[in-house]
């Protein structure tokens, strides 16, 4: 059913419908988030701005999805370089917003401001897809050097802002694209290993076990690895573990909290724990069917932090209960499945790789955001795609979707 008689991928109307549905839910929730018992001039009417951005996003989607894919391909590297350049500029002249005033994540241009990281996510996904599509198939660890470098540059610039949440999206793009690039599973695991090395460094025995597993893996995969590769990987892992462990061990628990807050300066340092609890209360008190649209007390009485942006999902949970949250997650699952199918249907490998990159970014956003609102993941200021308030993110998400559709139509 996916492909028409001519072999042309059908324009994915269902994708458009699901994106629009999520976005409309978002505008509705932002409206609700502005409905406070004691109105605040800062949050009232934000839903109108979001609606304007949604309109712009839809227009961009409809335009881009019909754009000849060749144009996109030609401009890929140029756009990547432009994205990185703007990120670099942002580090110098950027500004923060609201509670995260110390962060350099916004760029103002004549009264209009946007988040260059959102643009960079799309351009990086494009460039990575292009590189993986045009380059040799990844068979060895050394084949990862170039793609890793490509993603590392914008990622490092975002970390320097610092905006850990968005940085995580780049990691999502990276691994999702590698997955679709048919990177052998061991290679992908090796690529992930420095991350594990850092995370598991909190206990010597655990790290030791990790090291044994790593060596075992390298030994089992020795026929496909060059000595240089193995040694480099071991050194990178040891290095990651070595810097993490002493730093982490030196810290008292409250300092570890501070570190988390430092990694994510959008949060009020003294309020990190409080926000988590309030979000969980909002979620839990919503129960099965919720308190009703605009009726959430945690939200209405300002107990819920950042209710327009990072904690918009808590508003969903409080006002529509488990029915609401699971429906939103089902919608996301549908979106992701539809994207996977679109990638499968695409004749152009470049299209599939791009779609997967974007999917990786959004999946990371959804999991980290939802995990944060129910308290199973640390608080990192990361918005929920299509639903959280934020013009740049919404617009760029629609742009990404438009580009994905455009590329999927390519018959080459």
């Amino acid at each position: 059913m996916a492909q028409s008689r001519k072999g042309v991928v059908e324009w994915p109307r269902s994708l458009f419908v699901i994106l629009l549905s999520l976005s409309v839910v978002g505008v509705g929730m932002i409206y609700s988030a502005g409905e406070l018992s004691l109105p605040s001039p800062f949050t009232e009417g934000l839903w109108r701005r979001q609606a304007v951005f949604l309109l712009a996003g839809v227009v961009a989607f409809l335009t881009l999805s019909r754009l000849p894919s060749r144009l996109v391909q030609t401009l890929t590297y140029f756009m990547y370089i432009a994205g990185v350049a703007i990120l670099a500029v942002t580090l110098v002249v950027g500004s923060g917003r609201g509670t995260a005033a110390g962060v350099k994540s916004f760029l103002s241009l004549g009264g209009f401001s946007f988040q260059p990281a959102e643009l960079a996510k799309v351009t990086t996904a494009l460039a990575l897809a292009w590189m993986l599509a045009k380059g040799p198939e990844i068979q060895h660890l050394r084949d990862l050097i170039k793609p890793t470098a490509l993603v590392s540059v914008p990622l490092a610039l975002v970390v320097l802002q610092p905006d850990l949440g968005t940085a995580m999206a780049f990691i999502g793009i990276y691994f999702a694209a590698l997955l679709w690039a048919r990177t052998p599973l061991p290679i992908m695991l090796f690529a992930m290993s420095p991350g594990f090395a850092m995370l598991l460094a909190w206990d010597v025995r655990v790290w030791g076990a990790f090291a044994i597993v790593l060596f075992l893996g390298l030994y089992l995969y020795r026929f496909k690895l060059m000595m240089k590769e193995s040694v480099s990987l071991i050194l990178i892992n040891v290095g990651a573990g070595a810097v993490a462990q002493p730093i982490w061990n030196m810290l008292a628990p409250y300092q570890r909290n501070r570190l988390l807050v430092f990694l994510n300066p959008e949060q009020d340092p003294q309020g990190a724990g409080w926000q988590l609890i309030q979000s969980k209360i909002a979620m839990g008190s919503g129960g099965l069917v919720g308190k009703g649209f605009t009726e959430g007390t945690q939200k209405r009485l300002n107990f819920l932090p950042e209710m327009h942006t990072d904690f918009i999902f808590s508003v969903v949970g409080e006002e529509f209960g488990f029915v609401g949250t699971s429906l939103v997650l089902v919608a996301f699952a549908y979106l992701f499945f539809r994207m996977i199918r679109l990638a499968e249907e695409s004749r152009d490998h470049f299209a599939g790789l791009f779609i997967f990159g974007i999917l990786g970014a959004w999946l990371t956003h959804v999991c980290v955001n939802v995990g944060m609102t129910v308290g199973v993941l640390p608080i990192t200021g990361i918005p929920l795609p299509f639903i959280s308030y934020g013009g740049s993110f919404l617009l760029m998400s629609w742009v990404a979707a438009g580009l994905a559709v455009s590329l999927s139509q390519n018959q080459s």
Partner: protein
Amino acid sequence: MSTDDPRKQLLRARGAKLIVTVLLGAMTAILFRVQVLGTSQWRLESDENRLRSFTVPSPRGIIRDRDGRAIADNIPGYSLSVDSRPSEEMVASLTRLREHFTMSDARFETLVERARAGPIRPLLVSLDAPFDVVAKIEERKAAFPLILIESRPKRRYPWGEVASHVLGYVGEINEDEMNSPDFAGVPRGTMVGRSGVEAVYDSILRGEVGTRYLEVDAAGRIVGSFRGTRTIPEQPGEELDLTLDLDLMAWIHHIFPEGMSGAVVALEVATGDVLALYSAPTFDPNIFLGTVDQEEWNRISQDPTSPLLNRAIMGKYPPGSTWKLASAAIALEVGVITPTERMPVPCTGAFRYGNRIARCWKEEGHGSLDLAGAIQHSCNVYFYQMGLRIGLSRLLEHGNRVGFGDRCGIDLPQEATGTFPDGPGYWDRQFGYTASEGEVLNLVIGQGPNSQTPLKIAQFMAAIAGDGSAPAPTLFRGAERNDGWRLDVSRESLQHILEGIRRVTGPEGTAFLSSLEHFDLLGKTGTAQSGGDRADHAWFAAMAGLPGEPPEIVVVVLVEFGEGGSVTAGPLAAKTADYYLRAQHGIPQDTIQTLGEYLRAGRSTRWAYTR
């Protein structure tokens, strides 16, 4: 470069779907646990977050007199409190509040101490904030985010000083009371009865506080009231109907001699109802509302005239000659005299008993008298002989049965117990010598170890004015009647006693000037030694009714340092009875009431000699 290996790519697609399914499925599972399985706990926390409970004070029951006049009611008032916050914020708020609301340094210190002591929420600053202060703070609400203003009914005593002793007053519940079982469940800040009827019937009057929930936002700002199912409405206190006649009490307050101390008790003969229970000097119970200034309290509680003392039930005075009526009743009860017989020894101004000479108050003597005559003239010599016939132990036994060594049992706190020997052994215990039969000579004329409250004398008077029975006087009309005691004396015999006191206000009696135009006044004067160099206390125990009819009202008056009973106490009793009876029988009130006043006013006094 399209999918050159569709099988491999399909595998990747499946892998990706698996990852999406596992991740989002895990999220859904976690959401299910928090939102469905754990919801009751989180719902509770959500309510705790936003709902602040406030006790809603219940209006105290209205107290009414026998004609339904409100003598204690409620008017709108305002309380000021500081919302519970970190103590320093509360102290800062209190300090700012002082600019608008005057607090003594001591009161301020107490509040600061309480704020620092811990989370009592909210901290009550005043139960009775003046309206202008409330208005000022409402205007500057932004400057006083922690100050809570609540409207709460405030007690008012419209009759002020008139009934202060009977009504008592209310005050904020204190620590001791909060720990007592009588006040279980009564929250801080509640007004509770402190004395008088307010204290005795506090549990009826108090009602039950309600609980109201206010919704607050994260910054602690009050958003609005919460009308949830958990709101517990306040239960207003029940109304209390008293037997008192406030018009009569106001009249007594009006006629009681300025600057003098004493008490007036009026009982209705037919029912034993307390019509008036007045004590002078008095005080305004309204000043005890809200937070009592320590200075004000000291001024009243340390006043040498003891205005807080309810002399009608707490003051004990030797009954003097008024007690001769009790002696006479006991003699008749025991049957040692007949009303018409005369005592063998006529009064010559003195009576010899053994080697002791007991004197009559009248040096030239009264001659030979029957019971009525002896009562009319208050002749000691007659009573000495009567007392010897009764005998000491029988006099004590019957005196105790009538309750002279006990309380009347009125429904008021702190009623004094009468002093009266419980038996001949009393003298051994109290004075270290064995009582001789001669002690009866003192007791029978109301002297010796015998002190009674004005209420006790009134209760006795009510018994002889009626059928000899004396229920415990009560103020609350719904109170259970206590049978009290009964004199075992026939009505005929009692008539002889009444005849004696009728003559007291007759043309030849000592209290003739207290007689009334429209009513029969029967009364007995008494003089109680005050013990010091000052004048004696004056008693007048009276009853009155329509001429030729049974008495309707008993009035007992005691005036401290009032000298002879007929000068100050008699007219007071007469005017009290007259005021009541005029109202009862539709006779217009008049300030000229007694014969003495008629004479001074130059009116015709023929009525006094023609009855």
